[in-house]
């Protein structure tokens, strides 16, 4: 298979999935966050009875509605791609992926859509309490949808709770709670939804800042900024906290990803954290050309060790330790893992051949060996390595993950200060005079999207070459279809999604220019 495999097929298939996933992710985080912002605003309305808050809520509900309508179902395209472009993968993950996605569909299509209908069309038709509950349940439904997809993605990064069936070539779930409560999935979910809350808060502040600059809807803008700044400030702290937890999980379970995103080439005890740095084009190692030198770097001594392990002396493997091995720290070399992976694949092949030949006795012996504890822990664990031709294929794109991590962290840090000063100056009554800050709020909106996308680039490019960590690389996961078919659908999606994006921007900017009706002056 690998001899015939056109690597451009793998690259185009990855590019197609990345394109559709990133377009989908343009719409999702705003929904995740703005639904809670709406729920808070409507709660204030119901508690105070002040109709000003109702008008504010309805305006942001309109913005949410536009984003939701354009974005809804864009995620379904990804599921189409599983069946067409990633058929080996979609079969291999069996009911592990299927169950969370099915639950996600039920949450999204039933819970969310039911209560969205009441939220939009129920004003004046249902009681205030029922309407408010519907708004909260819409927010909850949207975020619970995110939970299930992130449980599935968490499993790709750290596969647990399953048993591979050599008869069906599927991973079967043996422990739902291991999958659902995986620390990778949990930290990833919490980090992701709080980043959505942050993005939505920045969005609300940015639009509100525009109104203040235009000397329009000033009361509306002030109240909106108040809610968004508080919500955003709290969220930004949690983003950092859960981002830290997520990084710890990467250190424990995806050491190559961590080494790549940190530019850690050689393992050491108590490694520093590179706060800032620029990679050069000059290679720093004669054997591994992907390892580039640094033009400059600002390093926090012991920082990485503290961040990942909360101590200053932890040994953390570098890329070279993970490829060459390190017996002192019980790290198998890549060639050793590749050899064990090949054995696992060969045993599966021998078992299949014995069954096809009708040799029941041999098949039974081979199956028992395959399923034995020793084989599962020492050979099947490296199944995916059996497809790797060259150990350097195990290194993800270092510049992409190095820079995306830093962009995300720097912007995340900036957002904390952004929310803090927005709130401080608003409460002091001086925000409207600081036109530079109001203009900064406008620029911060696209920066929120940049941070959000950078996080996903880090997560997904960083796990390469794996589609399931250690068990299945992307080259083994892809369907054997023509490259041209993938290229056609790539450009088709680029066209369709760009149209949708243009439609969203046009409709949204028009409604923002119209402003909240009947008030907010």
């Amino acid at each position, binding site marked *: *298979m690998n001899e015939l495999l056109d690597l451009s097929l793998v690259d185009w298939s990855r590019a197609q999935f990345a394109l559709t996933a990133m377009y989908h992710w343009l719409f999702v985080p705003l929904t995740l966050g703005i639904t809670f912002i709406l729920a808070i605003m409507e709660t204030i309305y119901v508690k105070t009875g002040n109709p000003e808050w109702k008008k504010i809520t309805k305006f942001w509900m309109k913005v949410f509605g536009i984003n939701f309508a354009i974005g809804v179902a864009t995620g379904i395209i990804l599921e189409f791609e599983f069946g067409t472009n990633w058929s080996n993968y979609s*079969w291999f993950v069996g009911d592990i992926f299927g169950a969370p996605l099915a639950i996600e569909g039920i949450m999204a299509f039933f819970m969310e859509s039911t209560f969205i209908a009441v939220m939009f069309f129920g004003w004046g038709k249902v009681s205030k309490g029922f309407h408010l509950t519907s708004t909260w349940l819409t927010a909850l439904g949207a975020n619970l949808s995110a939970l299930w997809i992130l449980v599935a993605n968490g499993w790709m990064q750290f596969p647990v709770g399953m048993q591979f069936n050599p008869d069906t*070539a*599927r991973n079967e779930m043996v422990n739902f709670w291991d999958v659902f409560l995986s620390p990778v999935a949990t930290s990833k979910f919490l980090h992701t939804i709080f980043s959505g809350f942050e993005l939505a808060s920045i969005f609300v502040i940015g639009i509100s800042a525009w109104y203040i600059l235009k000397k329009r809807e000033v009361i509306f803008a002030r109240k909106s900024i108040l809610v968004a700044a508080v919500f955003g400030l709290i969220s930004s702290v949690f983003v950092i906290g859960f981002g830290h937890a997520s990084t710890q999980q990467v250190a424990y379970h995806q050491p190559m990803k961590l080494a790549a995103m940190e530019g850690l080439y050689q393992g050491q005890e108590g490694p520093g954290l590179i706060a800032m740095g620029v990679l050069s084009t000059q290679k720093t190692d004669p054997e591994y050309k992907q390892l580039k030198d640094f033009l400059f770097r600002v390093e926090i001594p012991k920082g990485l060790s503290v961040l990942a392990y909360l101590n200053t002396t932890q040994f953390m493997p570098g890329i070279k330790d993970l490829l060459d091995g390190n017996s002192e720290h019980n790290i198998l070399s890549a060639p050793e893992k590749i050899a064990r992976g090949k054995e696992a694949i060969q045993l*599966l092949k021998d078992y*299949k051949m014995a069954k096809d030949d009708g040799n029941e006795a041999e098949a039974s012996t081979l199956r028992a060996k395959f399923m034995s504890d020793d084989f599962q822990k020492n050979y099947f664990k490296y199944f995916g390595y059996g497809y790797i031709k060259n150990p350097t294929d195990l290194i993800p794109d270092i510049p992409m993950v190095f820079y995306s991590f830093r962009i995300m962290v720097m912007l995340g840090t900036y957002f904390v200060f952004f929310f803090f000063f927005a709130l401080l100056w608003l409460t002091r009554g001086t925000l409207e005079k600081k036109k530079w800050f109001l203009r900064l709020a406008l620029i911060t909106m696209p920066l929120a999207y940049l941070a959000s996308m950078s996080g996903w680039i880090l997560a997904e490019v960083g796990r390469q070459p794996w589609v399931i960590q250690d068990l299945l690389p992307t080259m083994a996961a892809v369907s*054997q*279809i023509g490259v041209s078919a993938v290229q056609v659908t790539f450009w088709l999606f680029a066209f369709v999604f760009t149209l949708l994006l243009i439609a969203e921007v046009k409709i949204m900017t028009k409604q923002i220019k119209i402003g909240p009706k009947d008030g907010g002056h």
Partner: protein
Amino acid sequence: MTWGKSLWVIILVKLFVMFFVLKLFFFPDLLKQNFKTDKERSAHVIENLTNIK
């Protein structure tokens, strides 16, 4: 057209394009399309997974 109607038009056109154009013509579920039973699908995937040089 009001903004609400514009959104409904976009939703309906989008869903139509996704399910009746993209899914039908560009995104067949290959395993379902090419094989009748799960046993055949398993055999195909195992063949793909084990056929490495």
